[in-house]
């Protein structure tokens, strides 16, 4: 990848934003502990940290969403204390959130001007808006059709719309919150080029991430946050990924654990001509002792595949689990036949948030022995087993009485895994198992998945994060527009080729 770095700018960059001694307390925690931070003109400054390190808090303060308890901020030489995002925008600060705030039913132009429409009398002057967007597009080289519906755009395109929104409001300082989380390698490269264009025109960028290598690639300087403290600012080229990881977590991290090539056994899960909700027909085999990664951009049939396999939605086609047909079974019967389900949305589908950890652990077994007798719950049995299960998956605190909503994201996911992997399923369908988790929790989840595989189970890993698919899978299937666009062993998989397949290019086509 070309490094979109502007080394010379760094030297002559005047300070744009200076943050001194910023402190923010929330009930029970010190979210920001006298943070110092500065950003220079035309610079990309990466902010790296785990969940709960204070990245979001810092960005929310910069964007006027919350106010600090103490500390000073100077923006372009003037005191800066935004009391709302509106203040921030008027001061020239723009933010692209990780989850886009776009209205799918509106066009790009309408989304961009929303809330700040050029008017002719009482009416919106859409033509003037489109003209202005066109000028911005040419000026910054952002390719997106202003008349297209946002609903029809890819994730990468939507992100460009978000950037346009900020530029339209004259942002000179752009905060990008985990901008590459959902992008393909090609889209990521495109984004990095766009960032280069922006900085060349004097726009400064704060780039929030937890991916070490891209931070080194895109930024000139990097500040690591850990538990509310800034643990140093370095030039991105002068610090090793290992050192960054150590600063982030506070301890040594094995960057990539060795994946032993598994000896795949007989097919455990067979899928033949499975179709549902416009997705398919799909044909796949998952073997014992194998992780089959399903790569793809969000919205390419992942939900339908999982729903059809789990029995959540009506589907056609045949599915065998360990030799027995399961496609006509209910969800519960499939679970009893040995299917484990880790839903992509742990808060909506994986857990009952207002219920306790013990109750959540019981979700797939509460109705049968030994957890219930004659229809009556055996709560004593639950409380006997709960602490052990929680400890086995390092759920903190390991108390069955704590409500799921009180747990951190990582611990919530561990709770889901404690239930689903703890039940020792023959086949685990894991969707986005590390979405939104910090480095430590991600590593834990990955190790557990590998452990399950090594015990001879099969795992279907559905993830939008290509790095994750590459890191864990023994074979990789690419899902694109509801079809399997490619299927290959991990050792033959190449991230560029996968990216093209994910975007719907024909397999083995003329590569870039």
């Amino acid at each position, binding site marked *: 990848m070309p490094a979109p770095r502007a080394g010379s700018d760094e030297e002559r960059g005047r300070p744009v934003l200076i943050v001194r001694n910023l402190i923010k307390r*929330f009930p029970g925690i010190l979210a920001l502990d006298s943070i110092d931070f500065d950003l220079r003109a035309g610079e990309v400054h990466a902010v790296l940290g785990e*969940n709960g390190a204070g990245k*979001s808090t810092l960005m929310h303060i910069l964007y006027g*969403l919350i106010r600090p308890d103490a500390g000073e901020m100077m923006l372009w030489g003037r005191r800066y204390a935004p009391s709302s995002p509106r203040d921030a925008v008027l001061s020239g600060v723009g933010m692209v959130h990780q989850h886009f705030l776009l209205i799918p039913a509106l066009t790009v132009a309408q989304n961009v001007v929303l809330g700040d429409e050029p008017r002719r009398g009482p009416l919106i002057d859409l033509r003037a808006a489109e003209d202005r967007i066109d000028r911005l597009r040419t000026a910054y080289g952002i390719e997106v059709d202003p008349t297209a519906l946002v609903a029809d755009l890819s994730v990468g395109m939507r992100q460009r719309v978000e950037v346009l929104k900020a530029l339209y409001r004259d942002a000179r300082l752009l905060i990008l919150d985990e901008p590459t989380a959902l992008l393909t390698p090609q889209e990521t490269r495109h984004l990095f080029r766009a960032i280069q264009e922006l900085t060349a025109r004097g726009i400064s960028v704060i780039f929030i991430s937890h991916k070490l290598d891209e931070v080194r690639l895109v930024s000139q300087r990097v500040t690591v946050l850990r538990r509310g403290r800034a643990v140093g600012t370095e030039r991105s080229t002068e610090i090793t990924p290992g050192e960054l990881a150590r600063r982030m977590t506070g301890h040594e991290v094995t960057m990539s654990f060795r994946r032993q090539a598994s000896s795949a056994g007989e097919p455990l899960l067979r899928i033949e001509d499975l179709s549902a909700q416009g997705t398919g027909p799909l044909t796949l085999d998952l073997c014992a002792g194998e992780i089959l990664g399903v790569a793809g951009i969000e919205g390419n049939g992942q939900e339908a595949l999982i729903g059809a396999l789990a029995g*959540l939605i009506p589907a056609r086609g045949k599915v065998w689990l360990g030799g027995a047909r399961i496609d006509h079974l209910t969800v519960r*019967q499939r679970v009893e036949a040995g299917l484990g389900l880790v839903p992509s949305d742990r808060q909506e*589908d994986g857990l009952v948030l207002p219920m306790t950890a013990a109750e959540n652990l*019981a979700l797939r077994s509460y109705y049968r022995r030994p957890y*219930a007798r004659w229809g009556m719950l055996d709560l004593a049995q639950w409380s006997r087993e709960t602490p052990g299960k929680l400890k086995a998956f390092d759920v903190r605190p390991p108390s069955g009485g704590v409500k799921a909503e009180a747990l951190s994201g990582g611990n919530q996911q561990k709770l889901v895994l404690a239930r689903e992997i703890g039940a020792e399923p023959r086949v685990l369908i894991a969707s986005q198992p590390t979405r939104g988790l910090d480095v430590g929790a991600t590593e834990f989840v990955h190790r557990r998945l590998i452990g399950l595989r090594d015990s001879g189970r099969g795992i279907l890993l559905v993830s939008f994060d290509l790095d994750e698919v590459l890191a864990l899978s023994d074979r990789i299937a690419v899902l694109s527009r509801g079809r399997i666009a490619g299927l290959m062993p991990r050792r033959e998989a190449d991230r560029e080729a996968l990216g093209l397949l994910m975007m719907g290019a024909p397999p083995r086509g003329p590569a870039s």
Partner: protein
Amino acid sequence: MTAGALWPFTATLLAFVIGGILAAGFGFNPISAYGALLSGAFGGAFAIATTLTNALPLMFTGVAVALSFRSGLFNIGAAGQYWLGAIAATWIGYRAAVPAWVHLPMALVGGMIAGAVWAALIPGIAKAYRGANEVITTLMMTYIAVYLGHYLIEGGPMQAPGFTPQSPQILPTAVLAGLVPGTQLSWGIALAVLLAVMVWLLLQRTAVGFSLRITGASPGAARYAGVSPRGTIVLALALSGAVAGIAGAVQVLGVDHRLYDSFSTSAGFTGIVVALLARNHPIGVLPAAVLFGALASGGNAMQISAGVPFHLVDILQGLIIFFIAGEGLLRYASWGRPNGQRPA
């Protein structure tokens, strides 16, 4: 958690404070008004019995609504199921010539089944298979129930001989015995307490109740856990309707002894408020129902002895509803966002 559990008390207290200020504003002495209210509701055995009699149907309907809320369904039509229960119990009460030990249970069970069917058959199945919003369907079924009841006793097959729009009186074998002589309070109160405890046990201690609760708290997680959404919907509405049906039956068998033209529908609707005040806890419904029963009986006394219009009670009820509904708003206003952090 504790702050949330205390909220019903705070809401009630706030309502009384503001109600008192309003009363003072209109030239009434709030102390004497509330004094009259209190002694009218709890001053002496007769007052207490009247309060409990008022509270009795609310205990049932409150439990019925709470049960549906806990299952994620909004059974707004407890009033209709209450009517159906009353109709069935009345009919069995005057028609069936069976021994007393069969007659009373038979009338109660008949009312229960009628309520269950009224809630489950159309609203339940329409929601389960067609996604029809149960708020609309249960409410529409309420109108049907009330008009059906009126038809039956206004020239219909259940009208007693004569011109008065009322059913025949139920046979003595079907009467739910009085608990306090000289008052309308019947043994139904014991049944209400028993039922509240049973519903609590159902929700907290049985597998079926657990299915209902996870469906109510997280439909997505319930689906992934293999709970049948359709079965749960029909079952939850049936159970809720059954309890509301018992309410109607108990009212007929213990208090009215026949179906009148002016048989009340308000118990079904007030049950919603009672359930909300009790935070949908089946046992918490009991004191919440007593509060509303006390407002009704004490309000009368207040009007007579202190000259304060009964409308103050309506205002108090409205304020309680307002503050219960406003809990989320108030919490937001006082603490702001939970902690301003999102998963990054």
